[in-house]
């Protein structure tokens, strides 16, 4: 039992902490995207930040968090603005313009990753898609305080979670008004464009912080599902964010447990992909939550 506990603290706890921090970061911001009916913008950002991240690395030559953040945020904002411009310029359907731009950005990112210069970046395309929760270990080193041995992803994710919550709390009023009635925001002299750009930049930063650990697929799920799980039950924006974080955390823990511990119980040789399992549970919970609401109404 003691051995299990040690293994849990060393292997499962860091991964679980990373997934939960990513949930707080992306899940909080996802509420704004869902309220603005822009969930697919989240998907586009999740793909489009990749070339910026790699370029940040290539330019500075180091795995500096700041450079990769800057590159990725620029790429995310640029992709969405480009898609908007293409849509207006060509009168394409929004999905098509988004699709053209984000597939191009993502392909560029993969190509850059595979190029010789970026080989040391230690990020392969499969990790970009499915995350690397399984590789986050807690290395315990004698004579060193515990926090110096934490995987660097956890610190980045922690910063992202603080950023997402801080941004949402500080601009709660303005973001809610922007999502509810953009014309009113404009008419009363708020600067909706500026706030929209800020939301995009913050979302890009949080996506970047998250996707190295949890992968594109879970980022897409975290940006859409928790908010959609909460929306049928929420009576206020604040309430929706709270419900989305509580329900999302529970499903994240359940998904991780299902992927990490269930297979060995059934005699499978190794654990399953945790990010994928959490994404599946979150996605299934969306229709389930709507059904629950309908049942509660009926009862």
């Amino acid at each position, binding site marked *: 039992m003691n051995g299990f506990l040690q293994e849990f603290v060393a292997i499962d706890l860091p991964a679980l902490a990373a997934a939960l921090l990513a949930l707080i970061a992306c899940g909080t911001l996802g509420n704004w995207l869902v309220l603005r009916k822009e969930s697919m913008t989240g998907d586009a950002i999740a793909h489009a930040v990749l070339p910026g991240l790699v370029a940040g690395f290539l330019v500075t030559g180091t795995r500096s968090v700041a450079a990769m953040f800057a590159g990725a945020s620029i790429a995310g904002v640029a992709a969405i603005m480009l898609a908007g411009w293409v849509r207006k310029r060509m009168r394409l359907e929004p999905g098509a313009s988004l699709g053209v731009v984000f597939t191009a950005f993502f392909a560029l990112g993969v190509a850059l990753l595979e190029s010789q210069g970026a080989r040391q970046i230690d990020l392969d395309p499969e990790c970009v898609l499915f995350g690397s929760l399984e590789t986050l270990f807690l290395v315990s080193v004698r004579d060193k305080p515990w926090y110096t041995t934490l995987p660097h992803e956890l610190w980045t994710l922690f910063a992202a979670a603080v950023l997402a919550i801080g941004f949402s709390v500080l601009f709660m009023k303005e973001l809610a008004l922007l999502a509810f009635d953009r*014309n009113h925001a404009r008419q009363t002299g708020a600067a909706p464009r500026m706030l929209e750009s800020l939301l995009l930049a913050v979302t890009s930063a949080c996506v970047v912080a998250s996707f190295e650990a949890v992968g594109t697929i879970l980022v897409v799920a975290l940006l859409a599902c928790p908010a959609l799980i909460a929306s049928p039950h929420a009576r206020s924006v604040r309430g929706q964010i709270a419900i989305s974080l509580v329900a999302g955390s529970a499903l994240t823990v359940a998904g991780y447990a299902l992927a990490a511990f269930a297979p060995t119980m059934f005699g499978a040789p190794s654990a399953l992909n945790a990010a994928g399992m959490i994404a599946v549970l979150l996605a299934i919970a969306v229709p389930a939550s709507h059904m629950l609401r309908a049942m509660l109404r009926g009862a």
Partner: protein
Amino acid sequence: MTAGASAAAPLELRGFSAGYSQSEIKVVDASFTLGRGTLTALVGPNGAGKSTLLKGILGLTPVHDAGAVRFFGQSLDAARERVAYLPQRSEIDWNFPASALDVVAMGLYRRLGLFRRVNRAARDEARAALALVGLEAQAAQPIGELSGGQRQRVLLARALVQRADLLLLDEPFANVDELTERTIARVLEDLRANGTTILAVHHDIGTVRANFASAILFNVRVLAHGPAESTLTDAAIVRAYTASNAANLSAGGAA
């Protein structure tokens, strides 16, 4: 504020045009002046560009001639605090997670400013506005559960808390119950009596005279402006509603 500015007309348009793109101009060369404490209906057939006119005045359409509009003798940016707008009910997402009180409080956001929470004073003010439109009891109710008429009154209450001197209302009487219609009419008349200037889009020609003292007959262009009784003659209405007017059609807005 100078004496001159306060004496200037609440809303003055001089050859104003607006639309959704250069090839889709819905409002052509509109000119009119609204005096202080007037209640005016903007009347015209469907597709005449009435909503576009209101949105254009407030700079909410992609193409609008901002230089041709003066609010109290000033530009929109200088006079924003004194202007409030009530959108069409259908333009709002009523599944949004908010209570009636939350929506009314949005009218106070500009005065509250950045980073300030909606405090008790703001909530009390919003509640008072809800009471004015007879929705005190519904303050905590989710907006998704309100009836059509109640939703309309919530939006009116949001415009009321802005304590504006000029109100631009898009179809305040559209598809509402009788209680709502009477409530809105009473509130607008009280505001007018206290010196507020009101311009409301209204498409039901039969009820204009009951609720409005003056009217603007509009179809792409301003066709007539004056007291409701004398402006809305049968001949003028037929002319506006048949829209066989070549000048209107060539501007591309008439339905």
